């Protein structure tokens, strides 16, 4: 079978991971009298990620994005150039919502005279992408995608497209989310998050039986992409990105339609399931979603006995662009021809890993399938 055409060469990757264990804090008194856990970066780590002279004007998401891009660039044999030939494509569902909330709370508590311009400017969702442009001097197309769990996937598609259309020499693609208390409040009020103090255990039958929800998280990952075939030794190749949303609100998820979605993604990429060395699932430890992921994994394994399946959200917690961190693991897997030890393999034994399939689905029905190859 001829090798599938690929969308882009992945030149380098860098990531900023939350701490390895969930951190516990008291819930806001007005909302709950309990302890809440989350995967988060401590403040000192976040501040160490960006140049000291700029920190005061930046929000957490900006610092995390800069940290991830810097790490990716540091890993580049041929770093992306300053100027118009380097595009920036960022996926972030909530960007600097923390600064947005501070701005609004000042209005509410202190009156409109307390409106602070810096918080307003940072509240605009492309503050992250424009800060990357400013910090690194990238003047190519600069796009921000804010579409829940399709945000990073949109950025990845657009970055690869710009390269194929010769509208950039490099595309810096980043997925980032900074956790803020307001999001924790929202998630707990919706019953999305549990109060478990122990790490998430995606696809664990025991945890699922206990009915715990997932835990919130944060992080950033960045990738330097080049046009397909332009790099002699890329880290990995992006074969395809397929991301779709539902046609009804609050859809009832079904493993059968998720399997059909994955099969279509494989067909589009001219890739067979038996070519996939590892399926990396975005299972986040929430019982309802884990049940779907488990059925999907079972369905795929039924078609390809011995198929290796892994999970990673015990490293990240739950956030809209966590798939960027999953993508970093997928890239590392094909680059090293070995599954990173922090990935939990829940089925099969990965050996020759030519392709990795990264699959996500959310309660809102947004789902994505990304295929990476050597």
């Amino acid at each position, binding site marked *: 079978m001829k090798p599938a055409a690929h969308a882009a060469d992945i030149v380098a990757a860098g990531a900023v991971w939350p701490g390895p264990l969930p951190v516990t804090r008291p819930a806001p008194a007005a909302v709950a009298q309990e302890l809440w856990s989350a995967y988060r970066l401590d403040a000192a780590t976040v501040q160490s990620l960006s140049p000291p002279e700029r920190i005061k004007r930046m929000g957490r998401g900006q610092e995390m994005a800069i940290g991830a891009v810097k790490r990716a660039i540091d890993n580049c044999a041929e770093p992306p150039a300053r100027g118009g030939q380097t595009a920036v494509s960022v996926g972030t*569902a909530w960007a600097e919502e923390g600064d947005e909330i501070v701005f609004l*709370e000042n209005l509410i508590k202190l009156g*409109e005279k307390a409106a602070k311009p810096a918080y307003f400017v940072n509240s*605009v969702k*492309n503050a992250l992408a424009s800060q990357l442009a400013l910090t690194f001097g990238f003047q190519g197309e*600069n796009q921000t995608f804010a579409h829940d769990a399709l945000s990073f996937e949109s950025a990845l598609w657009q970055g690869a497209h710009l390269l194929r*259309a010769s509208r950039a020499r490099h595309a810096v693609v980043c997925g980032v989310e900074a956790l803020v208390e307001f999001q924790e409040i929202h998630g707990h009020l919706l019953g999305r998050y549990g109060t478990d103090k122990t790490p998430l255990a995606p696809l664990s039958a025991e945890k699922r039986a206990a009915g715990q929800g997932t835990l919130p998280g944060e992080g950033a990952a960045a990738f330097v992409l080049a046009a397909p075939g332009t790099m002699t030794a890329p880290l990995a190749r992006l074969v395809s990105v397929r991301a*779709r*949303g*539902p046609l009804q609100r609050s859809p009832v998820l079904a493993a059968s339609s998720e399997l059909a979605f994955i099969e279509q993604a494989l067909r589009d990429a001219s890739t067979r399931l038996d070519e996939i060395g590892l399926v990396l699932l975005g299972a986040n430890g929430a019982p309802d979603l884990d049940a779907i992921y488990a059925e999907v994994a079972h369905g795929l394994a039924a078609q390809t006995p011995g198929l290796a399946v892994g999970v990673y959200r015990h490293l990240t917690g739950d956030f809209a662009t966590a798939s960027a961190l999953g993508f970093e693991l997928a890239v590392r897997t094909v680059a090293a021809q070995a599954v990173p030890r922090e990935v939990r393999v829940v089925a099969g034994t990965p050996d020759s890993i030519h392709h990795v399939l990264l699959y996500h689905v959310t309660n809102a029905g947004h789902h994505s399938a990304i295929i990476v190859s050597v």
Partner: protein
Amino acid sequence: MSARPRVVVTGMGIVSAAGWSLDETWDAIAQGHSGLRALSLFESQRCGKLPVGEVTGDPAARSGLSGGSRSDHLAVWAARQAWGDAGLGAASFAPDRGAVVLGALTGGMLFTEEFLARLHRENRVDASHLADRACCNSTDRIAEIFGLAGFRTTVSNACASGGAALGLACDLIEAGEADVVLAGGVDSLNRIVLNGFNSLMLVSPDGCRPFDAERKGMSVGEGAGILVLESERHALSRGAHVRAWLAGRGNTCDAHHVSAPQPEGRGLCEAMQIALADAGLAPAAVDYINAHGTGTADNDPVEAKAIRALFGGTPPAVSSTKRFFGHTLAAAGAIEAIVTVLALERQAIPPNLGLRTVDPKIALAPVMEYRQAKLEVVMSTSLGFGGNNSVVLFRRPGSWGEAT
């Protein structure tokens, strides 16, 4: 290698302070009626008397949408118009070949504001509407209503979002990802935007007057603009009426400042050059530019410099239409693209309402009165925070060869 498919406009829908439809909007433009008026949507100590481009009437009733935010209602209403205008039906294309790309910034921000006000003033929580606060909700609602099962995303490039969304829609069609794309932008008024721009001292106390010597800033507005874009071949195969060819687009980033444009307008000039190259046209081909023209001290001279740098001493006709509906943020690029296409169709140039005396620092002569003109190629520009520049260029039907 096959030629790049042409992307054509086959439907449009609009809502803003200037009207609820294409005809109402154009009537306001032709008659010189500004939609700016005092804010009534919510109370504001400091911004309540500032003229804003507030949509009057009941967006929820128009949209027919159960629940959702004001932005969702505006977007869905504009999408319903565009869908009908394009003569689309469920059988017009395979569901997976239909896409949605919307520019949006603030989504259901009013819900966030109400939640926080209750939390801090009454010490109680009510999360019933928080799920509708995301700016991508409007995109999802449109996809659900019209059965668009293909690619969908929400572009959030500040005030250049609407123009960038149109560009991305072209990308999807050219890459073979979609046959039909509903693309545009939406934003609604809320406290953070009004107070935010006011805290930057960018809001005019008496309504925006773009390019005027005595301009005092912008006027914040709200609205939605949705265009139906499809490959020309697809449009012709279903007998659609082609309104215009989206012949070129250009996006750049100044990488100069988080909120201010590069003072010489280099990024915007380059975006216009890219759009022209994309369309295979020389600057002299452009007959009219619908300028971003916010009326702020910084924006207007920068835009004028960029236009002069590219077009030299004989720039095309230029006007800003912001005083008709205010600065509608993520919707601006889409609403103004629609106005630009209407200008092309009606062979008339919208006036730069509010302009009395051109700022001597601005080496342009914006069109002050509505007038008929022969237009073949027209352009719309958008600038946003973060130095984002987005340009779209349209050509009149009949001005090109066979379908590609």
